[in-house]
């Protein structure tokens, strides 16, 4: 046979393969198709339903496997331990005290939350950050230049692993009224979706029929096909595959109805309401440093953030009306607030306006260090800073897929300083506008005002002594 004819036949065979696979009967199982494959084929989602593809599943599974593999590898075995940091890291992991990360010469130990449990609704987190200690630059600057580098090396050698450590304890309130934890609203969410499924699942009867059929014909397994049964001389009862196909189709129809009913009544928007719940957080951190590195510092901060459309508002609305939550009642609430129209979330909801507030206190301790050999002495009195900020922001535009395109934020920050001659009280207000461009990059423009020119910071264009403009484009790194 001539090579050209062979090639033509090969091409025909290659094209015919996929075609033959696609030519399965549309209303019954194929002769060589196993019943379970046939069932899955008929249960495929309808074209107007977003389907999770096998590729997506494979991708997710691959990621998961990578994560599992990474987790299975010890983050630092005692045999490989070369310093106190490595030993500490291995010890921390081995005793399941928490997680350890080591980046840029900074070791971060996060304590397992279970070790810090103080009861339901109150979440504590503990963290220790060990930075690579460095001799203070102001101190080095006082050493005569001709011996500075030699002294830097010897002073650096005196520093140990714990000579620049920050200990942080943070608290967040997680209850039905505070925090964005889904489990706090599980009963309500379950009840709504359970009702939605109860109202839309029409596959129950057909499923029961199919299960009874499997019981009645235990010699027919679903991983067999009509052809394989014929080879074994097993007779397929009439209507067997029809019952399975009917169950598959009604399951598919129920899934579509369940999705539409839930969307129409705004059930999926419960995700937004939970994410907009008020967040109350507090933290205290203490940075302990060797005198060669710098003064010790204490910082305490309280912050609060909330979105307008949240679960607390929904509960108040129901309480006012003495109503119990149901899918239609949720729809009424969302429509009354202008967050749902014709079964779709409105821009007013997707704009997700938020308000944030924070107050912090910082204290730098008295500091004194003397290097007699260098005839150097450095001392600083303690200083205190109280600062607060108030901010608000919202998405100006959200695309059809719900991804934010543009956003505006306004923030005003004030700072009052005591005891530090190098710093003064200041007030800075910033309005920022960010826009995602068609190529995926984000452009941002900020208008900054400061009460004194020296607090304006680095700006791209000075409009006046106290007002400036900052602009930037964040380019995404090119994909390898």
């Amino acid at each position: 046979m001539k090579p050209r004819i062979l090639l033509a036949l090969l091409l025909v065979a290659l094209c015919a393969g996929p075609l033959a696979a696609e030519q399965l009967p549309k209303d019954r199982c194929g002769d060589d198709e196993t019943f379970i494959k046939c069932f899955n084929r008929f249960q495929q989602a309808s074209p107007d339903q977003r389907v999770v593809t096998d590729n997506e599943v494979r991708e997710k599974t691959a990621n998961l496997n990578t994560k599992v593999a990474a987790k299975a590898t010890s983050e630092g075995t005692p045999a490989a331990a070369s310093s106190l940091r490595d030993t500490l890291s291995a010890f921390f992991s081995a005793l399941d005290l928490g997680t350890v990360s080591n980046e840029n010469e900074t070791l971060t130990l996060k304590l397992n939350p279970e070790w810090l449990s103080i009861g339901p609704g109150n979440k504590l987190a503990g963290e220790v950050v060990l930075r690579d200690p460095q001799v203070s630059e102001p101190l080095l600057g006082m050493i005569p230049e001709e011996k500075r580098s030699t002294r830097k090396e010897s002073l650096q050698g005196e520093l140990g692993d714990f000579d620049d450590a920050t200990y942080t304890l943070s608290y967040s309130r997680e209850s039905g009224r505070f925090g964005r934890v889904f489990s706090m609203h599980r009963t309500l969410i379950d009840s709504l979706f359970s009702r939605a499924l109860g109202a839309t699942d029409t596959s129950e009867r057909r499923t029961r029929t199919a299960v009874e059929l499997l019981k009645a014909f235990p010699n027919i397994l679903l991983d067999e096909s009509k052809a394989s049964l014929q080879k074994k001389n097993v007779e397929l009862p009439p209507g067997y595959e029809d019952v399975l196909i009917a169950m598959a189709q009604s399951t598919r129809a129920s899934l579509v109805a369940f999705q539409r009913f839930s969307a129409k009544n705004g059930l999926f928007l419960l995700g937004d309401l939970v994410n907009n719940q008020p967040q109350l957080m507090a933290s205290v951190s203490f940075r302990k440093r060797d005198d060669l590195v710098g003064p010790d510092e204490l910082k305490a901060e309280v912050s609060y953030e909330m979105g307008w459309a949240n679960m607390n508002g929904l509960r108040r609305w129901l309480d006012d009306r003495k109503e119990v939550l149901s899918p239609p009642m949720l729809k009424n609430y969302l429509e009354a607030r202008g967050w749902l129209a014709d079964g779709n979330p409105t821009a007013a909801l997707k704009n997700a306006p938020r308000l944030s507030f924070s107050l912090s206190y910082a204290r730098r301790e008295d500091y004194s260090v003397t290097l007699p050999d260098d005839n150097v002495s450095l001392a600083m009195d303690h200083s205190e800073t109280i600062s607060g900020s108030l901010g608000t922001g919202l998405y100006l535009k959200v695309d059809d897929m719900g991804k934010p395109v543009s956003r505006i934020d306004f923030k005003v920050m004030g700072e009052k300083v005591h005891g530090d001659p190098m710093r003064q009280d200041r007030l800075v207000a910033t309005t920022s506008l960010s826009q995602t461009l068609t190529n995926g990059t984000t452009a941002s423009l900020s208008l900054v005002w400061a009460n004194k020119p020296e607090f304006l910071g680095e700006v791209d264009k000075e409009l006046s002594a106290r007002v400036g403009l900052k602009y930037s484009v964040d380019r995404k790194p090119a994909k390898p």
Partner: protein
Amino acid sequence: MPNNPPRPTELYTRVPDGSTLSLRVGPSEAPFTSQAKFFASGQPSKKWLDAAIRPGPKTAVLHAGSAYYLSVWLAFLGKTTAEIEVTIQQPDGGTHSTPIRWSVPGEQGDVAVRGLFIQMA
């Protein structure tokens, strides 16, 4: 034996009498809700709510002479991946076939269903 990754509806065959089905769903704090329906031949179906199956396990004993079907329905309130795991433990303590682990990614507004037929030995 279930494929890897498993199909949306899977199958266990020749399951020994007295085996125990075990269902777990996770992660616990992810923005989705789930519900399972368990059908046993000759009996009314049972509904297992999210709180019963996440993290689970919710178990059921399987008997010879019956057939079973388990469906797990998911509704996503945010972008996440739901993990469903079904195992069958034989009366001798061994695991029947390979445990089924569905990883179901979804975004806000998505729904999904996963099913399992069980045919006894």
